[in-house]
């Protein structure tokens, strides 16, 4: 099992399927503390990604090529703040993934690039009830796993588990960044939709790696 270009393409398609399945749940989460469009926006974006991948005539050579297609398509087709946030995440991840295949440390670099992209746009830190609360522990867990000698797939699993715990940890938090911050104390008691969709994306990456022949 390898994390290669085919994996990156499966990741995008898995993500599109999972986001479509979770659309109602994400809309509901976002309705509690945001403007209710997160699920709709992301679904539109990932459906566009799939259409773009289907339309590609020249097969991508590098993982970064696939990630860049995801990035620019999300930027073009997702309204609201999550387009630039996820778009930049995939763009920075693409920059460090000009490889035909990822080893454990390259998986870490990809995740670090994504986190860096999100913080470059959103300027959020851990504990502010945002996507960063999922991605930051995911990167920490990936670093620890890679350093302990885990395989690339195991690094992804470690990242996804940490992201899921991080997303749960946003429930009691009071938002200080993004749309939910307008609610102040009332934002506590709900999971952050951006953190929730981040977990869905990482779960898709794991599933795509399990599907590898």
């Amino acid at each position, binding site marked *: 099992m390898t994390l290669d270009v085919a994996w990156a393409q499966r990741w995008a398609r898995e993500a599109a399927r999972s986001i479509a399945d979770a659309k109602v749940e994400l809309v509901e989460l976002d309705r509690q503390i945001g403007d209710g469009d997160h699920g709709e926006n992301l679904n539109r974006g990932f459906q566009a990604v799939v259409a773009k991948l289907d339309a590609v005539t020249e097969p991508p050579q590098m993982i970064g090529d696939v990630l860049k297609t995801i990035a620019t398509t999300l930027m073009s087709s997702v*309204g609201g703040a999550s387009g630039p946030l996820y778009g930049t995440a995939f763009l920075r991840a693409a920059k460090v993934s000009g490889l035909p295949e990822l080893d454990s440390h390259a998986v870490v670099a990809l995740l670090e690039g994504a986190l860096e992209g999100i913080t470059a*746009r959103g300027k959020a830190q851990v504990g502010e009830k945002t996507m960063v609360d999922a991605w930051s522990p995911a990167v920490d867990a990936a670093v620890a796993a890679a350093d302990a000698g885990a395989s690339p797939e195991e690094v992804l699993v470690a990242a996804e588990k940490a992201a899921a715990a991080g997303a749960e940890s946003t429930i009691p938090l009071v938002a200080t960044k993004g749309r939910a911050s307008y609610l102040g104390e009332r934002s506590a008691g709900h999971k952050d939709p951006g953190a929730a969709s981040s977990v869905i994306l990482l779960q898709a990456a794991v599933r795509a790696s399990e599907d590898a022949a």
Partner: protein
Amino acid sequence: MKARVALVLVSHSQRLAQGTVELAQQMAPQVLLLAAGGMDDGALGTSFDRVYGAVSEALAAADGVVVLADLGSAILTVESVLEVLADDAQHVVLADAPFVEGAVAAAVTAHGGGTIEQVLASAEHAGSTFVGSGGESGQNAAGDGAPERTAADGVVERTVVVRNPMGLHARPAAVLARLIAGFDATVTVNGVNGASVLELMKLGATGGAGLVLTATGPQAQEAVAAVVEAIEGGFGEL
């Protein structure tokens, strides 16, 4: 002369972006102003493709591009475009400025041939220009039509009375600011920078108000003479 710097105005609303272009264009007809408002289907939001297209078009036509954005994700969208443009983005700057006031001030400075740094500074100073609002009234500086005099330190001073009933509203203020920017001189009007359209508007000088002009620099005399002629001509509103 075509302005060196173009502006891209990014808003969640297509109509707000277009309306702001319309407003600023009236005061700065020779500047390339591009609206990038709304989503591709016209709904509220910001479109990466629209902003990317407008910035690319502006870059192709001008030496530099100053971008103004209205709220939240509009700023994120502009930043994403700059990130994708990579090296091409070195002649593009995003102003931290109020949308309408910044666009007007930046457009007038660009019209006067300003550099990208000067246009950016005009946009970003537009915020502080309006802090506190009100400002000096044009009325309290009413003069007696004293003749022009040159002080020993080279300062040219002159008092003039606003003749058009509407006074220094947006359009005349822009005319004056552009006129003044064209001279190699520093001109103040009732103590404020005469090359700043926003500071001139803030004077609130209505018809009949006296304005004290002071000028320094190689073309101080010519600048004051031109300003007096424009004000006494009533900006075509008499």
